[in-house]
């Protein structure tokens, strides 16, 4: 069967499954809508958390980024998994014991203040919208490639599907849908990885194959070969880094604390029954995430080796079909700068660099003399090949010449990853609006039914905004997502940690900390990423820290401001201090979660 038909079948069947689950588990009360009724098993919750959290960026972009960055890409691997250790040890059990619906709920109650709650709501909305923008772009890319529709149409199909199960099922529907989505996405990620590893090294386990010798050259380790080839072409060695030590540390830390402060992840720990289940489900979540994360560096390195060996110094006319497929989609470009008909893929040390200036601009209908798409903005260096990072995972099965059904499976997996995260974020946005804004601040006497209607309406509105971002994408998937982590690190993390571990922490300190933290992060991000406030290049970075890593600086500033301000202002009321004490022990969850 051809891959197009198979793709329709795989994607269609998986969507039918998700919608079926949503109908079966639709929410009837606000408790079911916000926290799935609070009775999800730790194993199911772990899987759902993994799917919720592994986004289009993890599935599609991460391996591609590592592939291009080599060792420097490790910040994503360590950062995004290390955060779960903080979540499990420092946040999850206590938030579960506290037992409400949302993160602003905790902040509002712990800091006995509507101002604190509003600040938290605003932070949750900023973080979630920044993050969801990346997801919708992912949905668009996948649909346009695999279903051969316009990106806009793809985004709209995605919106309708998410809308259906997020609005109908709430957290309950999302949770069980995400369990199914996890299974689809992990299977889709592992199958091609196993094939590729086996082809290259004879070892079917990708994470071990990565450290194995090549079948083509039995005395050469795969990574050594890759290091050698990279250096030969003028790139830095794959296993060596080129980033500054301080920036690597800052980015890793920002991603770790950002993970631990992401509202759509934290909220998952409200859905289990007991404190011990919250700890356990954090463990399962990392286990399930880890399976993908230790496979991704293998996919990255094999993909890179395959790419170099396929294209370097080869004739354009002899390129395999996938090359032209991706070229036609504008994700790959070749500019024959020296008119020899061969592809020169060169790094800086060989007078290479970026093959073109900025993103590729293709001429409409003209073709070059070898039949390649013409690019209107070539750069002056010798590198002739532009490869969009996002294609690494998507094109891998084709590069390795795998059967059609694997390609269809990867399409379904990508969509599962993007849709599950989008749904989780939608729920955070809708509950921030209906629960924290309407129920807790504007109209406290609203009925359970009325709140449920409000939650559904808010979800509809959020989908429309997210769809807008999908159609007008703000840049690279992972770059945008990385900034959402910085924002979460700068705002929530200190307020929650101090709320649990520092009894003396009061509302004045927490509010000041959150406001200063998120403003500082927003300022830095706008200045250095989007050219506001005079802009600036990497030479103007403070302490040599990139916008992606700046969340960790803003987090420290938040901690500092919070503690200093709290020293000069009255201590929190007695009942709040008692609440902190009760949150610290796991007994009596039933009463605590009796809403």
């Amino acid at each position, binding site marked *: 069967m051809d891959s197009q038909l198979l793709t329709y079948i795989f994607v269609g069947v998986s969507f039918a499954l998700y919608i079926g689950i949503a109908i079966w588990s639709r929410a009837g009360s606000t408790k079911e809508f916000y926290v799935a009724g609070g009775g999800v098993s730790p194993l199911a919750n772990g899987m759902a958390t993994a799917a919720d959290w592994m986004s289009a960026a993890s599935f599609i972009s991460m391996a591609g980024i*590592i592939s291009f960055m080599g*060792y420097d*890409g*490790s910040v994503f*691997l*360590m950062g995004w*998994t*290390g955060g*779960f*250790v*903080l979540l*499990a*040890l*420092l946040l999850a*059990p206590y938030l579960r014991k506290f037992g409400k619906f949302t993160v602003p709920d905790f902040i509002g109650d712990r800091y006995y203040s509507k101002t604190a709650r509003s600040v938290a709501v605003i932070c949750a909305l900023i973080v979630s919208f920044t993050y969801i923008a990346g997801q919708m772009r992912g949905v668009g890319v996948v649909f346009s490639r695999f279903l051969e529709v316009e990106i806009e149409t793809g985004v709209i199909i995605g919106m309708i599907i998410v809308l259906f199960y997020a609005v109908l099922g709430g957290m309950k529907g999302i949770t069980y849908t995400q369990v199914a989505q996890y299974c689809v996405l992990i299977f889709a990620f592992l199958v091609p990885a196993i094939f590729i590893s086996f082809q290259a090294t004879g070892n079917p386990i990708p*994470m*071990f194959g*990565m*450290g*194995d*010798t090549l079948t083509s050259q039995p005395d050469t*380790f*795969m*990574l*050594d070969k890759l290091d050698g080839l990279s250096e030969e072409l003028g790139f830095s060695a794959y*296993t060596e*880094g080129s980033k500054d*030590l301080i920036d*690597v*540390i800052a980015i*890793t*830390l920002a991603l*770790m604390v950002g993970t631990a402060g992401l509202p759509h992840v934290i909220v998952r720990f409200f859905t289990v029954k007991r404190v*011990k289940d919250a*700890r*356990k489900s*954090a*463990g399962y979540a*990392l*286990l399930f995430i*880890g399976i993908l*994360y*230790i496979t991704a*560096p293998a996919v990255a390195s094999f993909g890179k080796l395959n790419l170099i060996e396929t294209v370097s110094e080869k004739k354009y006319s002899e390129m395999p079909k996938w090359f032209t497929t991706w070229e036609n989609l504008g994700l790959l470009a070749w500019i024959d700068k020296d008119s020899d008909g061969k592809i020169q893929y060169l790094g800086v040390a060989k007078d290479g660099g970026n093959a073109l200036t900025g993103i590729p601009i293709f001429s409409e209908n003209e073709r070059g003399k070898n039949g390649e798409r013409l690019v209107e903005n070539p750069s002056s260096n010798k590198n002739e090949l532009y490869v969009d990072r996002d294609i690494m995972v998507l094109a891998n099965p084709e590069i390795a010449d795998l059967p059609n059904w694997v390609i269809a499976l990867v399409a379904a997996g990508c969509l599962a990853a993007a849709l599950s995260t989008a749904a989780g974020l939608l729920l955070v946005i809708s509950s921030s609006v209906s629960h924290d804004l309407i129920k807790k601040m504007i109209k406290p006497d609203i009925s359970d039914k009325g709140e449920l209607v409000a939650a559904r309406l808010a979800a509809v509105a959020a989908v429309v905004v997210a769809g807008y971002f999908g159609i007008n994408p703000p840049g690279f998937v992972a770059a945008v997502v990385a900034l959402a982590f910085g924002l979460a690190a700068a705002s929530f993390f200190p307020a929650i940690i101090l709320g649990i571990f520092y009894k003396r922490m009061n509302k004045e300190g927490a509010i000041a900390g959150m406001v200063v933290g998120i403003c500082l992060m927003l300022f830095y991000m706008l200045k250095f990423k989007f050219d506001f406030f005079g802009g600036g290049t990497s030479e103007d970075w403070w302490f040599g820290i990139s916008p992606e890593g700046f969340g960790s600086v803003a987090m420290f500033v938040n901690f500092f401001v919070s503690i200093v301000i709290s020293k000069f202002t009255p201590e929190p009321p007695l009942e709040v201090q008692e609440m902190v*004490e009760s949150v*610290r*022990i*796991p*007994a009596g969850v039933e009463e605590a979660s009796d809403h």
Partner: protein
Amino acid sequence: MDKQTDNKQKHASAYWRENLKYLAILLPIWFFVSYGAGIIFKDWLDQFQIGGFNVGFWFAQQGSIYVFIILIFVYVRLMNKLDKKYGYDK
């Protein structure tokens, strides 16, 4: 404060102190395998090899993740035991 609540509170603080003690053991390991082995001492560790992996590079891309998973499950076990010891597991 009457005697019973006083005892209850002492009990709770003792539990909390032991919990903090576990964190003081586990979090440095978390720090060491990632920021230590994967970043700061990466270049030095890279002179050693496990199979085709330089050790520092391996910690950065795989090893730290294995350790993170183990850390959480160790914490889960320790805390479940602690809950039992203090009678908070009911």
